[in-house]
Every structure is written in structure tokens, then in C-alpha cells.
């Protein structure tokens, strides 16, 4: 996933902030929806904000609130929400080669969402080791804060916001597919990887369309990986490494 290093800003804090901006278009509308949903389900404003701060994983937060309100057994709530988040298992090992030995990375793993993982895997190979921690903190904290603030907005004034600016929740989320597209495109530099990425993308889209949003990402990623092994490399293919 290479983006030419010369396009990066010299200041990793600024680069992290710049890279995190498109995430806000996807995070804030969903966070506002979650805040509103949680308060309407009977949670308090502060409790709703703490759910977003502590769990920080969209789908499992909605599931947590819905299952608690419906009176589901404790063990089932915990197991189901953690199952949804289990796709995160492969994120840490993928970015580990880019993280220098530093104990500060441990608490920062809380910020490792789908989108921050994707950004990290795209950006870090082109950064110096000393810049990586600052870039990650900048991008990660901005994304986390936007999630918490969006939740607070939704919990306090979600009804009014969605009524007054309905288009915001329709238009801004397009920043996420646009962001993922510019991360996918550099990988499609040869036939084998192009087929792999197309299969992963289309499988995920179909699974979501047919009502399996929670398994769409891990299942489609595995399909894509299987396709990679199934496609015979041509002499011009570049292999697995970036």
C-alpha cells in the first residue's frame, strides 16, 4: 500500500491530523446516531458518552445498548459484542513491524479502529520510525475525540440536528468509501492483486447487502486472501510485500 513518501508533510502531527480529517465525515454522523439511539433507549447522556469512550467500536456499541435494553443474558451480551470486534485480531500483527519497541504503543492500541488500521497500514511504511508514534497519536486521538464528541452531540441534541440538517448524515459518510478507495487503488498495481482486491470488495458489499454486515469484513477478507492464493502469479506481478 504505498503512497509516495515525498507527498507526506514533514510534521507528523500535522500529517496525522490531515489524514484523520476524512474519517470525521464517517465518524460524526454515526456517532450522533449512536448518541441519539442510546439516550432514546434509556441510557443517560454521561453514560452514553462513556460507552463511546471506553468501547470505541461502532457496531458493538449499538448491539450492547440494544441487548441490554432487551434484557439479554449478561454472558450473551459480552460474547456477541466481542465476536463483532474479533476482526480486530489481525490488525495489531499487521502493523507490528512498523512500531518500534516502545511501551507507549500498548495503551495506544485502544485507538486501533478499522479506519485507523487502514490508515496506519497505508502511511507507516513511508514514515521514519521516529515519526510514527506522533503521527499515530495525532490521527488516533482526533478520530477518538470526534467519536466521543459526535456521541455527546447526538445524546444532547441528536433529534434537532438530524431534523435540521438531514443531508449531513447522507452526504458526509461518503468520505469513508472515498478514503478506502484511495487506500485500495495503490495495491491494484498488478493482475493478481487487482483480482484479490476486487473479490474482497465485491464479497463484502454483497454480504452487507444481503444482511450480514457483521461478518462481511472478515469473511470477505478471507475470500480475497484465498483468491490471492488461487490466482497464479504472472511474470509482471510484484508479490506480497509493499
Amino acid at each position, binding site marked *: *500500500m504505498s*503512497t509516495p513518501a515525498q507527498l507526506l508533510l514533514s510534521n507528523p502531527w500535522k500529517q496525522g491530523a*490531515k489524514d484523520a480529517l476524512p474519517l470525521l*465525515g464517517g465518524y460524526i454522523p454515526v456517532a450522533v446516531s449512536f448518541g441519539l439511539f442510546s439516550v432514546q433507549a434509556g441510557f443517560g447522556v454521561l453514560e452514553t458518552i462513556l460507552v463511546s469512550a*471506553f*468501547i470505541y467500536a461502532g457496531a*458493538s456499541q449499538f448491539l*450492547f445498548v440494544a441487548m*441490554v435494553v432487551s434484557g439479554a443474558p*449478561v454472558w450473551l451480551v*459480552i460474547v456477541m*459484542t*466481542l465476536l463483532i470486534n474479533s*476482526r*480486530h485480531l*489481525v*490488525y*495489531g*500483527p*499487521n*502493523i*507490528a*513491524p512498523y*512500531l518500534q519497541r516502545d511501551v507507549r504503543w500498548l495503551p495506544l492500541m*485502544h485507538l486501533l479502529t*478499522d*479506519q485507523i488500521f487502514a490508515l496506519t*497500514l*497505508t502511511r507507516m511504511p513511508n514514515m521514519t520510525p521516529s515519526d510514527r508514534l506522533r503521527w499515530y497519536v495525532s490521527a488516533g486521538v482526533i478520530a477518538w475525540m470526534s467519536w466521543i464528541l459526535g456521541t455527546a452531540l447526538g445524546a444532547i441534541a441528536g433529534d434537532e440536528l438530524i431534523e435540521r440538517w438531514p443531508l449531513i448524515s*447522507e*452526504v458526509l*459518510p*461518503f*468520505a469513508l*468509501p*472515498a*478514503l478506502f*478507495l*484511495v487506500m*485500495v*487503488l495503490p*495495491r491494484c498495481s498488478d493482475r493478481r492483486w487487482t483480482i*484479490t*482486491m476486487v473479490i*474482497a*470488495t465485491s*464479497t*463484502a*458489499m454483497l454480504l*452487507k447487502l444481503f444482511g450480514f*454486515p457483521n461478518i*462481511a*469484513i472478515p469473511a470477505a*477478507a*478471507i*475470500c*480475497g486472501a484465498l483468491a*490471492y*492464493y488461487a490466482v497464479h502469479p504472472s511474470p509482471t506481478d510484484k508479490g*506480497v510485500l509493499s
Partner: protein
Amino acid sequence: MSGQTWMILLSIALGTYLIRALPYVWMARKLNKQASQGNVSSTPVWLTILGPTMIAAMFGTSLVPVEPSLLSWVATVIGCVATYFIWRRTRSMGYPIVAGVLVFGALTVFFG
């Protein structure tokens, strides 16, 4: 929130954190061990494939519009085409995303 709900919340928060942190710790230790033994430290091949395919899968799920309709699908396709062309010209991340959102937004506003 009752005491039981707080317990559930904290369990999920801790579990989610561990799901994110423990695999990283495992891989970091593995790489350090390889390096200390004088071997070239390397991530398993399947992981280097799964990372990009996870991103492609996220792209796939994000393509499904918030409120699916003919207009939102057409706007999504045209927004992606705009993003692609600006990316081809600039090879950057910011401008293509802004262009995509503007095109998608314009189509949604004018034809919605």
C-alpha cells in the same frame, strides 16, 4: 445504569482492548525474538495478504449507501469515479476524497 450494566460495559471495553492489544504484543515479541536470533524478522505471508484484503472489505461494506436508492447508488458510483480520476492525477489522499464527497453531495442535493 445498574451495577450489572456497568460490569458488562467494562468487560466489553476490556475485551475489545485486549483483542486489539494482545495480537500486537504477540507479533512484536515474535519479531524481536527472530531479530535477537539473528534471523530476518518477518510477518507471516498470510497476514501481509489479509491486511490489504481487510481494507478492500471495508471499502466494499462502505459502498452500500446509508439509505439505499437508485439515486444513492448512482451517486456512489459517480462519486467513486470522481475520486479515482482525481487520485490518478494527484496520487494523494486528501484531494480525491474532497472531490468524491463534493460530487456525491452535489448529486444527492440536486437530484434528491
